[in-house]
C-alpha cells in the first residue's frame, strides 16, 4: 500500500489489524504521535488526515491509502518550529511532553474547524462562530493532559489563533536535505 505522510510517500505491506498510529510508530519510525490509551479516549495519537484531526489509534492503516496524513513530525522541526509548537514552548503548554504532539495536532486542526465556522457545544450563536477561551477548552477536551498544562495550552492556542490564517494546517517547508522521497518498508 501507499501512504503519504508529511508529504513523503511510503510503500508498505500492512497487516489489516494495524492502526494508523501503529503503522507510524512501529513500522515507519514516526514515533512522534503517542499511544496513551489505544481507545480514542486520550487524544495523544491525534494526526491530521486530509486536514482533519483524528484519533489515529481508532483508524486502521489500510483505510488511508492516498490520504494526506500530517503527523507532529510534519508540522515543524526543532530548528524550524511551527507557530503552534513555538507557542507551546513559550507558554509551557506541556510538562512530561507525552500528550503534546496530540495536543498540537489537535489545536492546529481545531483552529481550522473554527475558521470553517463549525460550532461546538459551547457556541452560543451558530451563525457567529468565533474563538474564546471557553471554545478552546471545549474543543480541546478530547486531548487529555494529566500533567494538566491546560491553562498554558489555552494561552498558547489563543496566541496562535490570530496569527495563522490559511497556513494553519500546511506542513512546514522541507529543508534542503530533506527532499521528497519514497520509502519502501514492510509493515
Amino acid at each position, binding site marked *: 500500500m501507499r501512504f503519504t505522510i508529511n508529504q513523503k510517500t511510503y510503500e508498505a505491506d500492512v*497487516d489489516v489489524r*494495524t492502526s494508523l498510529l*501503529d503503522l507510524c*510508530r*512501529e513500522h515507519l*519510525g*514516526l*514515533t*512522534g*504521535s*503517542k*499511544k*496513551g*490509551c*489505544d*481507545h480514542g*479516549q*486520550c487524544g*495523544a495519537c491525534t494526526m491530521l488526515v486530509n486536514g482533519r484531526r483524528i484519533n489515529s489509534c481508532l483508524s486502521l492503516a489500510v483505510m488511508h491509502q492516498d490520504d494526506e496524513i500530517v*503527523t*507532529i*513530525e510534519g*508540522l*515543524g*522541526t*526543532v530548528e524550524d*518550529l511551527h507557530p503552534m*509548537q*513555538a507557542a*507551546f*514552548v*513559550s507558554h*509551557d503548554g*506541556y*510538562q*512530561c*511532553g*507525552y*500528550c*503534546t*504532539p496530540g495536543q*498540537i495536532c489537535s489545536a492546529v486542526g481545531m483552529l481550522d474547524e473554527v475558521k470553517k465556522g463549525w460550532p461546538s457545544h459551547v457556541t452560543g450563536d451558530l451563525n457567529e462562530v468565533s474563538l474564546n*477561551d471557553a471554545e*478552546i*477548552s*471545549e474543543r*480541546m*477536551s*478530547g486531548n*487529555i*493532559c*494529566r*500533567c*494538566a*498544562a*491546560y*491553562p*498554558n*495550552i*489555552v494561552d498558547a492556542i489563543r496566541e496562535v489563533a490570530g496569527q495563522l490564517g490559511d497556513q494553519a494546517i500546511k506542513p512546514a517547508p522541507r529543508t534542503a536535505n530533506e527532499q521528497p522521497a519514497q520509502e519502501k518498508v514492510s509493515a
Partner: protein
Amino acid sequence: MSILGKLFGSDDAETNALVMDEPRPHSFLDHGAQDVIGKPINRVEGPLKVTGRAPYAAEYPAERLAYGVLVRATFGSGKITKIDDSAARALPGVIDVVADYDTFIRSPGQGGATEAPPQGVQEVHYFGEPVAVVVGETFEAARDGAAAVRLEYDEADASYAFAAHKDQGKEPKEDQIPGHSKQGDFAGAFDKAAVKIDVTYTTPSQNSTAMEPHASIAEWRDDTLILHGAYQMVASDQQQLAKALGVSADKVRIIARFVGGGFGSKLGIAPESVAAAVAAKKLGRPVKIVLARQQVYEATVRRSNTEQRIRLGTDANGKIDALSHNSLVTNTPYEQYWEPVAIGTHFLYGGENREMNHDLIALNLNAAGSMRAPGEAVGMMGLECAMDELAEQLGIDPIELRRRNEPAQEPEKGIPFSSRNLIPALEKGAQLFGWSQRKKAGTDRRGEWLHGMGVSSAVRTNMLMKSAAKVTLTTDGRAIIDTDMTDIGTGSYTILAQIAAETLGLPVEKVVVHLGDGKAPPSSGSGGSWGAGSAGSSVYLACEKIREKLAKSMGVAVEEMTLKDGRAIADNRVVPITELIDENLGVIGQIEPGKQEKKFHQAGYGAHFCAVKVNVVTGEVRVERMLGVFAAGRILNEKTARSQCLGGMTFGIGAAMTEEMIHDDRNGKVVNRDMAEYHVPSHADVPHLEVHFLEERDIHVNPIHAKGIGELGISGAGAAVANAIFNATGVRVRDFPITCDKIIEQLPFDA
C-alpha cells in the same frame, strides 16, 4: 580515583560531598552574575517534545525487535493449574508464550525499594495479576495471542470488599510516620471541649494515569541487560530489576531519558520490565512490552482508598485542644506499604492532645503505593474539610480559625520550623482572590446556579535524598551534567541547567544535561518532591568545587571572583574560563541528608482558593476560578514551578469531583479500567488557574535553599473545591468524589 568515581566506572573526578548537618546560609545562587536562576526560561528540552523528537521508553529502535503482550489473571485469587497456550501458539506471527512463574513479579516495586518486588505469579492475589507474556513478530500478533491464552485455575476465597472488612485493620509498621501515635490525653480533652467536630470522610482508590503507559524494551548484550524503561528512580529500579532477575546490579542498565509522567506510578519497576527481560533472554532478541491502558489500571500501583475519622475539640474561640485523625487504608495481603494519611496533620495545627492512628486492611486488590503526595493528597482533603466544618460551627472565618491554631513550633517534636509561611500564604491568597466577597453558605444564588468559595491550607513535608551528579567543564566552554536523575515533566533538565549556568557563569545554552542513564552517578530520582532540592544540590556542589578550582587557577579568592558569560572576572582581570583549565574538568557533587532535618521541621506551605458554581437542578459543579499561593524556598524556575502547581491543583479538582477507581466487591476487578471510565480532569473541567509564590529561602534544607513543589500544589486543593461546593450549596458531601448525585440528594427539593 574517588570512591564515587570507582562506583560509576568514571574517570578521576574529584568529589565535593556535603552532609546537611549545618545550615548553609551562603549560596552562589544568590550572588551569581549570570542572572538565570529563578527566571521563567523555556524548558531546554522543549523543542524536542513539541516536535515529537523526544524519545520515550517504547520508542527506541532495536534490531529484530519482538513484541510482548502480558496475559492477566481473570480471577481474583487462587492458583493457576495450567496455562493453555495452544491456540495462541497456533496464530501466525506468535513466537512464544513465556511463563516464568517464579521470576515474574506479582506487583510493581514500591518507590525507593532496593529489593526485588514480590515475585511468583502461579498464586494469584488480585484480578489482573500479569502471569505470562505472549511474544510475537508484531504487536498485533502478540495482542491476539494474549487474547487466545486460556488459564485453568483453582479459585480461592479472598477478601475484596472494603465495607465488609473494616474491622480487620492492623497497625502497620512505622514508615515515614508511626502507624499509631498519641500525645497527651485525647479522649479526655475531646470530652471536655467546648466545640466539637466528629466527622468521617472517605476517599476512593485512585490511579496516577500518567499519559505514557508503563513500557520496557529489554535487550541483553552479552550478559548485561539494557532496559529502556519509563521510570522515576533509575538507581533503585536497577537494583529491583537485578534482584528480580537474579543478576548483579552492575549487569542491569536502565535508561529513561524522557518519561511521560509518573506521579508515583513509575517509582518502582512495573511487571512488564521483568517479563520483557525474561522473554528477551529466552528468545535471544530484544523484546518490547507496553502495558495496555487497562493493564495500567489493573497492575500498577493505586493510591489506597481511605476512611478518615477526624475529631477536633476546641475552646469557645476555636483554639484546638484535642485533635484526632484516624484512618483505615488498604493494600494487597503481602504488601507493607500504607498510605500515611495524617502525615500533614502531625504538624499543621497546634493542640496539646493528639491521636493519629492508621490501620491497614489486607484486601485482594491490586497493590497500593505512592501516588502524588502520598498522605497529604487524601489526608488534607479530610482534615481541611473538617476545619471548614469547624469554622462554620464556630461562626468564624476559616482563615481566622487557622490563624488561631498556628503553632509556634512543631507541635509534637517541639523543634522549630525551618521556614513556615502558611498564614502569609492564606492572607495573600485571600487578598488576591477577593475572599472578602464570600457569602454565607447556600445564599448566593444567581438563576439556577449557586455560587460559593472555599479555602484550604497546603502543606507538604520537605525531603532531602542522597544524590550525586557529575559536572564537567569542557575546554570548549560548556558544562556537561551527568546524573541518573529523571525528568518526568517536572523540569529537571531545565532547572539543573539553570543551577549550573548560574554557578559557573555560563549561558544556559552552554549547559548540556544528560539524564536518566543508570550508568551515570546515582541521584535521588524523581519522587516525593525531593528531586529539585536533592539533584539540584548535587549539581550545585559539583559547580561549587569547579568554581574553587577556577579561582585557584586564576590566583584569586573564590569569593572575589565573578563568573559571567564564560569569563572569570577578578583582580581587575577578565579571563575566559577555558583559559583557566588545561583539560576537561569533571567534579562529582553529592548531597546527603544530615542533622538539619532532625533539628528543624522542614515543609513547604501554601493556600488554595476556589470558586465554584453548582447547578440547583442537576447538581453539576463548575470550577470557575482557582488560585494557589505557595512558599517552597527558592523557586528555581518560575515557569516550570508554576506548571507543577497547575498540575497539582488540577489533580485536586479530579480528586474532589471525578476520580474514583471502582473495584468489583465480588472479585476485586477494576471496573473502570480506562480513561473513558476513570475520569481525570479534561480541558473543559479546568478554568484559568492562578499561581503565586512567596519569596522564601530555606537555609536548613540544602545549599540551594529550595524545597519541593510538585506535591505541595495538590495538598489541600481538593478540599478547597469541596469547601467551595459547601459554601455554594450548604450541602456537605463527605464521600469523595463529590459527584452530581451526591449533591442533588441533599439539595432542597424545591430548588
